[in-house]
């Protein structure tokens, strides 16, 4: 076991609060977990050196941290500062039908429910998910009542100051037919470490629109997850936009626990310098008639490294499943690296399932076409590469967010050296 994990476990053992039953369970699992090495399949291309060497530690709240402004976005703000919920940032008047509470402050009955739900969606195989179970500082419970359509998106920001370590946890439940959009983002300055996990319980006919922006770069270390439990006729549309850092890893699990679930997951990542970003996306089709459409596109430059593992598991009873996984990768420098692995595991016989992974250079015909219109090769390359991810930005349901992120991505891309 690593020193870092031993230290995390011993810190976890000192915590004594409402969540004890789940924390001790996580600690027990952690005590028997082997620290991943190069031979551990889930971490094969993502070395954990950066975690072992980070000097980040849990700090007191730094109040001058403020979430990055998103122009024209009117959101309900849920702000964590170095892992602690900033209650003052939360509006006093939330829309009817939406409640946001600290797990520690819930009434007894609700708290029992929160304990029961905790870590029920997130699979135990995620090592840092267990760390988060044990160390999460403030656990926030978000609930949308049945039939309520929340107009404003809920933005969950995790802010870290130089040297900070944070473990944030949010549990989001959508009642039957409810609708909610959630934006998750992380801002980390300098050497920082964070685990940010969110579990989603999506009731029948509910709709979740989801975004996760992992734009932290540099010496930050981030390991997090988004885990979705989908019931009958529920739908979700998720967009992940990531840059890379010393270590940035995201695990997503979409679990079709009901029939006729429709899930869409689009991920964009743009890596430069020595950055690393690793997305492990798992879809469990446990029930029939589900649909999954997954598009993952990445552009990797510099000496950066991208990892994508896309697993779609279609269980024996999940007949009539339609699942599609498409992964397009583009290397813009000779020293960049992409490791991609689509995994389809199909046990039902009446399904339609397709996957494709390509590590492509730009299309020569398109390049020629642009050149015949006067655009030089270098610029044509930029245009084409950008178009490649722009397609997924166009699919973002929230146009304010799309127009906010587009220039950010463009600027990052323009700064990347194409060679």
């Amino acid at each position, binding site marked *: 076991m690593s020193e870092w994990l031993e230290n995390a476990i011993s810190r976890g053992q000192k915590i004594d609060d409402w969540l004890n039953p789940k924390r001790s369970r996580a600690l027990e699992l952690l005590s028997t977990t082997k620290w991943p090495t190069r031979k551990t399949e889930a971490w094969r291309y993502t070395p954990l050196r950066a975690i072992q060497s980070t000097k980040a530690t849990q700090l007191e709240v730094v109040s001058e941290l403020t979430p990055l402004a998103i122009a024209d976005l009117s959101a309900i703000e849920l702000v964590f500062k170095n892992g602690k919920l900033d209650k003052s940032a939360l509006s006093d008047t939330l829309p009817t039908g939406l409640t946001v509470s600290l797990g520690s402050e819930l009434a007894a009955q609700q708290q029992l429910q929160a304990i029961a739900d905790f870590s029920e969606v997130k699979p135990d195989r995620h090592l840092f998910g267990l760390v988060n179970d044990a160390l999460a500082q403030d656990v926030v419970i978000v609930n949308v009542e049945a039939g309520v359509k929340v107009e404003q998106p809920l933005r969950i920001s995790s802010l870290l100051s130089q040297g900070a370590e944070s473990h944030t946890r949010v549990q989001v439940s959508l009642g039957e037919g409810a609708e909610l959009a959630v934006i998750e983002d992380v801002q980390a300055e300098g050497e920082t470490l964070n685990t940010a996990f969110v579990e989603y319980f999506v009731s029948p006919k509910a709709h979740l629109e989801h975004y996760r922006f992992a734009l932290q770069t540099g010496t930050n270390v981030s390991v997090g997850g988004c885990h979705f439990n989908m019931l009958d006729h529920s739908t979700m549309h998720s967009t992940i936009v990531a840059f890379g850092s010393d270590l940035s890893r995201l695990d997503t699990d979409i679990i079709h626990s009901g029939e006729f679930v429709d899930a869409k997951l689009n991920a964009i990542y743009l890596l430069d310098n020595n950055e690393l970003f690793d997305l492990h996306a798992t879809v469990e089709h446990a029930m029939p008639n589900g649909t999954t459409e997954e598009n993952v596109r990445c552009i990797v430059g510099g000496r950066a490294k991208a990892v994508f593992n896309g697993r779609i598991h279609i269980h024996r009873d999940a007949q009539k499943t339609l699942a599609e996984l498409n992964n397009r990768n583009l290397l813009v420098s000779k020293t960049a690296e992409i490791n991609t692995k689509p995994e389809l595991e199909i046990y039902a016989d009446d399904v339609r399932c397709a996957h494709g992974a390509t590590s492509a250079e730009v*299309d*020569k*015909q*398109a390049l*020629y*076409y*642009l*050149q*015949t*219109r*006067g*655009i*030089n*090769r270098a*610029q044509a390359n930029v*245009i*084409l590469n*950008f*178009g*490649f*991810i*722009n*397609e997924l930005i*166009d699919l973002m349901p929230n146009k304010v967010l799309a127009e906010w992120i587009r220039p950010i991505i463009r600027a990052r891309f323009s700064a990347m050296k194409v060679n």
Partner: protein
Amino acid sequence: MSDNKSLLTIKDVYASIEEKQIIKGFNLDIKPGEVHAIMGPNGAGKSTMGYVLSGREGYEVNSGTITFNGKDLLEMEIEERAAAGLFLAFQYPVEIPGVSNLEFLKASVDAIREANGEEPITSSELLKQAKEACKQVDLPLAFLKRGVNEGFSGGEKKRNELMQMLLLKPKLCILDETDSGLDIDALQMVAAGVNSQRSPERSFIVVTHYQRLLDYIKPDFVHVLADGKIVKSGDASLALELESQGYAWLETHKDEDNIEG
């Protein structure tokens, strides 16, 4: 054959693709304002000539010279040829998802302006011009926001090519089978677009398999291309003659060549 007033002079050009000889001694001289039609059977090298002129990778000129506006065209990069005023309207324009038509037009217009020492066009001016051009070729304005040619029908792609031509105002337009796959209404619209651009400063090469486009775009000269070279040239009446007789005699001619070779 050529003089200093020529816009384009192609002299005895041989060109190949992957070592396969396609163009075998091509000669053509075009003066400003002229419209030349190049007709010929499939496989004669009609599209190849357009690619050679545009500078497409893999289309190798083995011998001969091409002078465009007084300069050696073969020494120029693809984009330099565009900046110098050469425009190729593709038979099968490529789809570029994720790059909006308008973004593409702006990049293109700006690149050509920059190469000619002009300031970039303002977004509002470009939008105004693009809207006018769309109207002229009957392309819905919504197409400006869509990905370049993405999901466009064959006819819409051709209109989009023409729309670009209207914005870029080239000196020489090569229309590569712009009539293929168009119904008669679309054909007339394309022809009207081309005719509106005819001017003493602008020349056209209209590459087509069929005569019908030439009912609407009246050429000054018609050339028949067979087996990589022009085998017959004449005025507009040659197209009609060819229409009545068909390419059959050319096909026979080519066969004889092959037997000899």
